[in-house]
C-alpha cells in the first residue's frame, strides 16, 4: 500500500505503523461525571467497518508524524490523508 503523506508525498506503507480507529484521538475528559464509562468505551470499543474507515498511521520510518488515513477496508482505496495533529486541533483538543 501507498500512503500519500500530506507533507512528504507518496510513501510505502512499510514505513508506517498502524494503530487503528482514529477515534483514539477523542480521549475523554478525566473529570467528566461518567469518565470511567467514557474511558472504558474509549479503550475497548472500536468500530470495524467494512468500507470507509478513518485510521491512525504513524510514520515511524519517516518524519514521525501521526496521520489520519481514510481508507476503504474492502478495496484498500485511500481517499484522504491528514496530519493527525490538525485533526486533533479541529476536534477541539487544543485546550
Amino acid at each position, binding site marked *: 500500500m*501507498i500512503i500519500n503523506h500530506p507533507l512528504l508525498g507518496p510513501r510505502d506503507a512499510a514505513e508506517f505503523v498502524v494503530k487503528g480507529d482514529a477515534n483514539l484521538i477523542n480521549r475523554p475528559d478525566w473529570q467528566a461525571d461518567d469518565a470511567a464509562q467514557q474511558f472504558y468505551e474509549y479503550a475497548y470499543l472500536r468500530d470495524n467497518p467494512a468500507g470507509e474507515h478513518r485510521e491512525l498511521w504513524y510514520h515511524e520510518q519517516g518524519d514521525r508524524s501521526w496521520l489520519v488515513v481514510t481508507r476503504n477496508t474492502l478495496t484498500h482505496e485511500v481517499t484522504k490523508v491528514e*496530519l493527525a495533529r490538525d485533526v486533533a486541533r479541529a476536534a477541539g483538543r487544543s485546550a
Partner: protein
Amino acid sequence: MTQSNRIDGGLIDRDRALSFRFNGKTMTGHPGDTLASALLANGQRLVGRSFKYHRPRGIFSCGSEEPNALVQLRTGAAQEPNTRATVVELYDQLSATSQNHRGPLAFDFMGVNDLLSPFLSAGFYYKTFMWPKAFWEKIYEPVIRNSAGLGKLSMKGDVDRYDHGFLHCDVLVIGAGPAGLSAALAAGRSGARVILADEDFRMGGRLLAETLEVDGMPGVDWAAEALAELSSMDNVRLMTRTTVYGAFDHGVYGALERMTDHLPTSGNKPRQVLWRVYSKRAVLCAGATERSIAFGNNDRPGVMLAGAVRAYANRYGVAPGKRVTVMTNNDDGWRTATDLLAKGVKVAALIDTRTGITRTLDGVRVETGSGLIDTKGHNGISWATLQSGIKIETDCLAVAGGWSPNVHLTCHQRGRPTWSEDIAAFVPGSDLPPGMRVAGSANGTMTMGACLTEGRDVANETIRDLGFTASRKAAAKAEDEASDITAFWHMGGSKARAWVDLQNDVTTKDIKQSHTEGFRSVEHLKRYTTLGMATDQGKTANVLGLAILAEASGKTIPETGTTIFRPPYTPVPLGAFAGRSRGQDFKPFRLTPSHDWAKSNGATFIETGMWLRAQWFARPGEKGWRDSVDREVTMTRNSVGICDVTTLGKIDIQGRDAAAFLNKIYCNGFAKLALGKVRYGLMLREDGLAYDDGTTARMSENHFVMTTTTANAVTVFRNMEFARQCLWPDMDVHLISTTDGWAQFAVAGPNARKLLQNVVDEGHDISNEAFPFMACGEITICGGIPARLFRISFSGELAYEIAVPARYGNALMGVLMEAGKEFDATPYGTEALGVMRIEKGHAAGNELNGQTTAAMLGMGRMVSKAKDSIGSKLSERPGLNEEGDLRLVGLRPVDRSVLLNAGAHFITKGDTPSMETDQGWMTSVAYSPSLGHSVGLGFVKSGTDRMGEVIRAYDPLRGKDTDVEIVSAHFIDPEGERLRA
C-alpha cells in the same frame, strides 16, 4: 546423441554448441535454446512422469504455462525441483533429471498406478482413506507422503543468494510481445518513465515464434528495431527474464528477475532479485495461452500445443516431430501446418473440428467436422485414430484448442474476467486493479495488426492520464491474420481417458464425476479434482475443465463462472521472498559503544532484541557462567562494578510544556521535579495496566532526559508522539531519541564514588552532600569531555550512571576499569545486572509483562489521583482493585539448597493444586551470591499481608514442588541505606 530434429532457421547461435546432460545422457544445443527446445532437437520426447498415474509425459508447450516438462535442475545443494524445461535457458554443462518416477524414466515402477486408475479417480483420497481409522497414521499417511509431491528437494541449505529491490516508473508495461513493444514505444516516446518487463530471455513474444510481417519486414526484425529504439531511450528500462508475478495495492507490482539462472554459476551475485515496482500506471500485455482439446490418450509425449510446435520450428529451429498431425478448432491451427510445411516438415494430416471449412493444403490430408478419439504409442505417440476409425501414423500431434487471454494479473484485486463468445475465452472484466489497462491478446485482441494498434492506443491513453503528450507516430502495421474459432472442447466416442489437466492428471471423467457427486461450483470442482492446482495453476487446463463442467451441468460457461487468480503468476522461490534476510543477515545488529572492549575482555554476548549485550565476562579458571556471574555480583556489592547500560531508551524532551507533558505520560507527578534531580517514573497503558518504567532527569527548566526500558524504547517513543500530536496537540513539547548518542555506564558498589572521582574533572563535586541520591548534572571528565551524571541505582548499591557522547564510550569503559583498578573493579553483564535487581526487588520485564497493575507492583500509591495521566482513570477500575489481589513479594526456599524456578505457581499449603486454588506465580528467580541461596520474586494473592507464610511453589512442568517462604521483595538493604551512602 545428434540433434536429429534440428532444422534450418531460428534464433539460435549455431556457431556455438552447448553441451548439457539429461538423465546422465550428454546432448548438445545452442545459445538461444531452452532446455525444452534442445531436448526436442535431440529427439527426446519423453521427459517426465505424471503426478498421479505416472503416465509418460513430454513437452507440451513452449512457455511458462508448461504442465508436463518439469525437471530437476542442477545438482547438489543448488538442485531445484519442478523447473519448467520450457523456460530454462540452456547454458553450457547444464544438468537436468526427470522427476516423479522410481526406476528409469522409460520404465517407472509407479506406473502401476495407471493400472489402478479406476480406483484413483477424483476424490479417491477422501473416499479411500477414511477407514479403518487406525490405518491412517501407520499406513495411509506414510504411503501418501512417500508418493506425494513432484520433484525432490536437496534437503541442503540453499547456496544461492537472493536480493530485493525497488523500482519506480510512470508506466509499467508487462509483456514485450507485439502489444507490449508497441505500448512501450508509445509511452517511451512521450518521455514518460517506462519499465518494460518480460519473462522471456528475449523480448518479442509471439513475434519471435511467428512468420508474420510487421511494417513490411519479418516480425522478428521489427521486434529487434523496436528494442533498439527502446534501449536508446534513457527513460525506458528493459527487463528481460523478469516475471511480473503480482498486482498489489496502489500500483505496486511484484516482479522476479532471474539474474544468473541462465549461467552455469551465479558468481557470488544474487541469483534472483525480487523487485517491488511502484508504478503510476500499468499496461498489461501478457499475451494469451493456448489450450488443448480433450480426447482419448491425448497426453502421450508428442502431443503438444499447436502454437508451441510452430514456435519450436520458427524460433528454435526444431521440428518436434517428423510426421506432424494438426488438430484444431480454429484458423490459428492451420498456421502451424503451413509454417511446418514451409520449413520442410512433413504434415501427415490436418483435422479441423469445424464444419464448412473448404480450405485445403497441398499434399496434406485435411479432415473437417471431425476429430481424433484416441492415440497409441509406447512412451510417445505413434498413431492417432480419427472418429471414423481411420488411423494416422504420426510422431507429433499439434493441438489447437484456441487461445485464452492471460488475465491473471487483472484478477489480483478480485477482478472477475468475463466470457467472450467471439474468441471462446475469458477476457478481462471491467473491475481491473486501479491504474491498470490491458492491451493485445491479454485483452482478447487476437491478431497481430490489432495488437500493435491497441498497444499504442492504450499506452497513449495511459500517458495522457499522467499529463504527458502522446507521440503522433502511428503504430506499426501488420495484416490481421485469420483467427476464427468455433468452440470445441472434447471428443467423445472412445473409452480411453481424455486429459484435461495434465499436471494433476484430471480427466473429463473426473470432472463429470465430481459434478455427479454434487461438486457443482467451480471452486468446489477445483478443490475436489485438483484441477488447476500446482505449479502451472491450470494455465492450459482451466477453461477446458470449466467448459466440461458447464456441459455436464447443462449451463453456459458464463453461468458456470470461473475461478480467479491470486499471485504469483508463476512460482516464486521462497528464497527470493527472504532476500538477504537469512542467517547472519536475518536482522540488523545493534552494538553497544563498549562492544569492542567487551569482546577483547572475555564477554559472552546475548541478543536482547536487536542489541548484542555482554552477558558476563569470564575470567580464567571460571568453570561456568554461574562462577562469572556470582563473582561479578560479589565484587560489585563488595567494591565496584561497571555495566554498559546504553541500550536503555533515551528520549530528549524539550519545550515550555515538557513538565506538564511528562505529567500526562507518567502516572506519578513530574511537574514539580527540581532542576538537577532524577525521578523514577511509571507509565501505564490507557487500560490502566503497567506499561514501562524508567527515570527522567530535569536538565533545565524546559529540558528533560528520559530513559525507558530497552525492550520498550521504540514503542514508548511512538506512544509519546501519539500523546503529543493527537491528544495534546498544542503543548509545546518536542521529542527526539538520543539512545545511540550517549554511551551510558552504571558504576555501582560502595567504591563507585571513589572510582568516579578519579575521572571527574576538578570543580565538579560529586560528594554525597553535593550530589545526593537522585541527583543529576552535566559535568566534564578526563580533561574536558562532556558527560552527564545521574545518581540512580538499579542494583541497590551506591551507584551512578555516567553518560558520554557515544564516540568516547569504548574508551571510557577502559578508563573506568583503569580508574577502578585500585578497587579491583569488575565489568558486569546482563546476568549480574539481573541478579542484583532481583536481590533488590526491582521490577523488570517479567513483572511488567502487560498483565500487571501498579498496585500489584507495590506502586499503587504512585498513581496520582490529582491529575490526568494516561491510564490513571482505568487503573481505578474495580476489577483491578479487588480484595485479595496479587502483590509482588520476595520468595526464598525453606530448604536453602533448593534452586527456584520462574513460572512455578503458588499453592497454599494443604490445598490441592488447581486453577481455583492457584495463589499466583513466580516471575523471576536468581541464585543470590550475596545471600548464598536462591531468591525469587513473584505475585501472591494478598502477598504483602502474608509475610512469613510458607507456601508451595508448584511446578508440574519441571516436576518440582518446593516450599517457599513469603518475604519482602527487597532481599538486600531494604532500608535503602547503601544507595544513599
